[in-house]
């Protein structure tokens, strides 16, 4: 707890509903505005409302420039009374949720649409990198310009040395997610992955190889945050929000990243939710690289620090396995549509715990933990967050 902190308050009366996914495309000539509009349209349809009923809007996108969420209100003809713009990449879904939840609780908004979406034109990724952050521009890109691959390669290399992790351990994560993805119709990756293929992939930035990387795509994900009363009035299947955490630039004195901000706040995450890690039926981690998945297993309390590899060896991470994880395949197999990647796990969790999964349904899934991670500002990811949700009546 913070030095001067007031105790965290749990959530009352926050419903999360209407998960929407716009199927990804590897490359598309469409703009972020277009993808976000499509997601909004689908959300309005799914909720059975009119777009004018949306009185809160939360947007996460890397490719909206020169616009922000503000420009989208005029562009889409919306007049929300609450507006948010979340520049936090992989943490944007959780962060959008926790902000929207408080807005709804306080009555500042009744129906908040949270959308993450990005364009991916042929040159988008290169241009995105070149304007990502000042520290990356000054002190990371001039060193091989490997982008996130280079940064995560260094983190992965150290983690492997420090904890005796082998490539095969990461392979287990990637292979299980691929198996999950094969049941998710929107997944970009359609072919099964085996250990031999995983190990034989070409190196991208040692020790990271091809199947440790996500495929950048265009696409959008979104969900609605409202009150349970409104959700029920609209007849929407929904989940209740139990607990969330958010942390930025955690452990700045660690010489190299071996843990995320979750490790600072995880106890409160469970305490406020009133349950423990053993109550989690479905875990959706942020998975731009498998090393960060392993860190989340540790930092979210599923195993101790340094035991991530052993945990992976002991568990079946598929939807029908002992530890259902990234049940739609995660970004590693479903694809990474920019900031939509920060919403993918949350959208999938809502579907699983409301019993409306597009991927193989995890049996009796009621409680989900979703975590986000983002923004390699220089040498490490700065933003982390997590949320626990429970299906209403599931």
């Amino acid at each position, binding site marked *: 707890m913070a030095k001067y902190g007031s105790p965290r308050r749990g959530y009352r009366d926050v419903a999360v509903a209407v998960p929407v996914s716009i199927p990804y495309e590897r490359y598309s000539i469409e703009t972020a505005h277009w993808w976000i509009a499509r997601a909004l349209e689908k959300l309005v349809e799914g909720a059975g409302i009119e777009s004018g009923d949306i009185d809160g809007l939360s947007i996460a996108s890397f490719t909206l420039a020169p616009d922000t969420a503000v420009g989208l209100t005029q562009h889409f003809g919306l007049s929300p009374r609450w507006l948010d713009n979340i520049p936090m990449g992989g943490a944007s879904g959780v962060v959008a949720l926790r902000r929207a939840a408080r807005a709804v609780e306080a009555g500042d908004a009744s129906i908040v649409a949270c959308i993450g979406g990005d364009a991916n034109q042929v040159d988008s*990724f*290169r241009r995105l*990198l*070149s304007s990502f952050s*000042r*520290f990356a*521009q*000054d*002190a*990371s*890109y*001039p*060193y*091989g*310009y*490997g*982008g996130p*691959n*280079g*940064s995560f*390669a*260094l*983190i992965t*290399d*150290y983690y492997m*040395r420090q904890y005796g992790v082998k490539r095969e351990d990461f392979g287990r994560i990637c292979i299980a997610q691929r198996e999950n993805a094969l049941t998710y119709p929107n997944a970009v990756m359609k072919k099964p992955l085996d250990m031999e293929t995983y190990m034989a992939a*070409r*190196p*991208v*930035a*040692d*020790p*990271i190889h091809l199947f440790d990387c996500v495929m950048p795509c265009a696409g959008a994900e979104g969900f609605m945050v409202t009150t349970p009363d409104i959700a029920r009035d609209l007849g929407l299947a929904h989940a209740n929000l139990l607990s969330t955490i958010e942390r930025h630039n955690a452990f*700045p004195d660690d*010489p*190299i990243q071996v843990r995320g901000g979750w490790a600072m706040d995880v106890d409160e995450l469970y305490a406020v939710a009133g349950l423990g890690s053993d109550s989690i039926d479905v875990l959706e981690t942020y998975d731009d690289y498998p090393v960060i998945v392993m860190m989340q297993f540790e930092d979210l309390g599923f195993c101790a620090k340094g035991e991530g590899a052993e945990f992976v060896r002991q568990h079946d991470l598929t939807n029908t396995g002992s530890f259902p994880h990234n049940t739609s395949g995660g970004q590693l197999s479903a694809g990474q549509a920019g900031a939509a990647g920060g919403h993918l796990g949350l959208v999938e969790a809502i579907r699983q715990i409301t019993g409306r999964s597009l991927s193989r349904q995890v049996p009796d899934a009621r409680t989900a933990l979703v975590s986000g991670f983002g923004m390699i500002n*220089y*040498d490490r990811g700065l933003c982390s967050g997590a949320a626990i949700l429970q299906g209403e009546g599931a």
Partner: protein
Amino acid sequence: MSVPIERPPRKDPQRVTRPPELPPTERSRASLALSAAAARGGFSMQVCDACGAVAYPPRDACAHCLGRSLRFRPVDDGGEVLAETSVQTSPNLYFRERTPWRIGIVRLDSGPSVVAHLHGDVTVPSRIRMILRLDTGGNGVLMALPAGRESENMADDPQMRELVADPKYRRVLVTNGRTEVGQAVATALSRAGAETVFVGVAEPWKPFAGQEALAALPGIAMVPLDLTDTDSVKSLAGQIGGKTDILVNTADHARPGGLMADGAAVTMRDTFDVNVFGLQRLAQHFGAGMRARGADGTNSAVAFVDVLPVYALASTPDYALYAASAAARHSVLQALRTELLAGGVRVMSIFTGPIEDEWHQAVAPPKVQPARIAKAVVAALREGREESFVGDIAEDIAARYRDDPKVLERELRV
């Protein structure tokens, strides 16, 4: 241990010369100060005036105390490399052409963790010594070398070679072989492993001291070159411009006298014709070819070096015209630095104090021996250093200049 590079073969006339690309060049203002530190040589990092914390990446406020007075100062260059990777693919054209590219994370003894280039001899984990160098884009970058003694062929590491302008296997033009400075520079470059040292001689019908000893050195080729004659510069560029990898301009017209001296206009014109216009002629006729060959393999074009008087920074009354030409020369070099940047070709300024030669006989010591200048030229090339100050007077003036140019102006009057 680094594998020694091989002597480059003759150029294949059927292959397209690899176009020069640059590593990312955009930097924040704070990081430009890192580049400036690299340009001057030595290992410096930002240090917070208020709390003494070492900051990296360069920033505008201290992460420990929010102090805004952060200055580059020499700091301990030791550290430990914790992790490494070899980048195999990059969307950046420069690195894409040069993969795999080895980088690592180093915990510096002074505090920060930094992403750095890794020399091929560095093992992980291990103790390292960090150096600050300019990359071909002209910006300061960090490279980790193994701690302890230098091993043989260390300079041949391909990533290291990108950060410097090592003369090994390169073809050099020294523009004026008539002077002791030119002869010393040519000799030193020949000894430093240059493949060929072309030595320019103006008015070859005039004999000069040291001519025979110079011609007897291995790899030396005397060529006619008169910097005051556009046609001469153009003709030589036509012959060897396509294989001039390093150009060292040692031409210097030094004459005492002030602005109001008899014939000052003629003296000034003669002085500028060699020192300033000569530099421009070299830039015009050799620059474009060098810029196009900035990535042309082992013997790519790498550096344009000028040996100029330190009075470029502030005038000296006894040599007012000469100092004026030096100031112009300094400005020309700054412009040339920008123009050659696209090719990754470095422009290096070797500022000297008064040279021990016939034109400084009336100047009190200390004076710079030509051999010392030659040593500085080779060192600048091997370290990729943009600015060097040779001799006690040059170093003194540089220090005073950095402290306060207006005070220096007054100090030099006396």
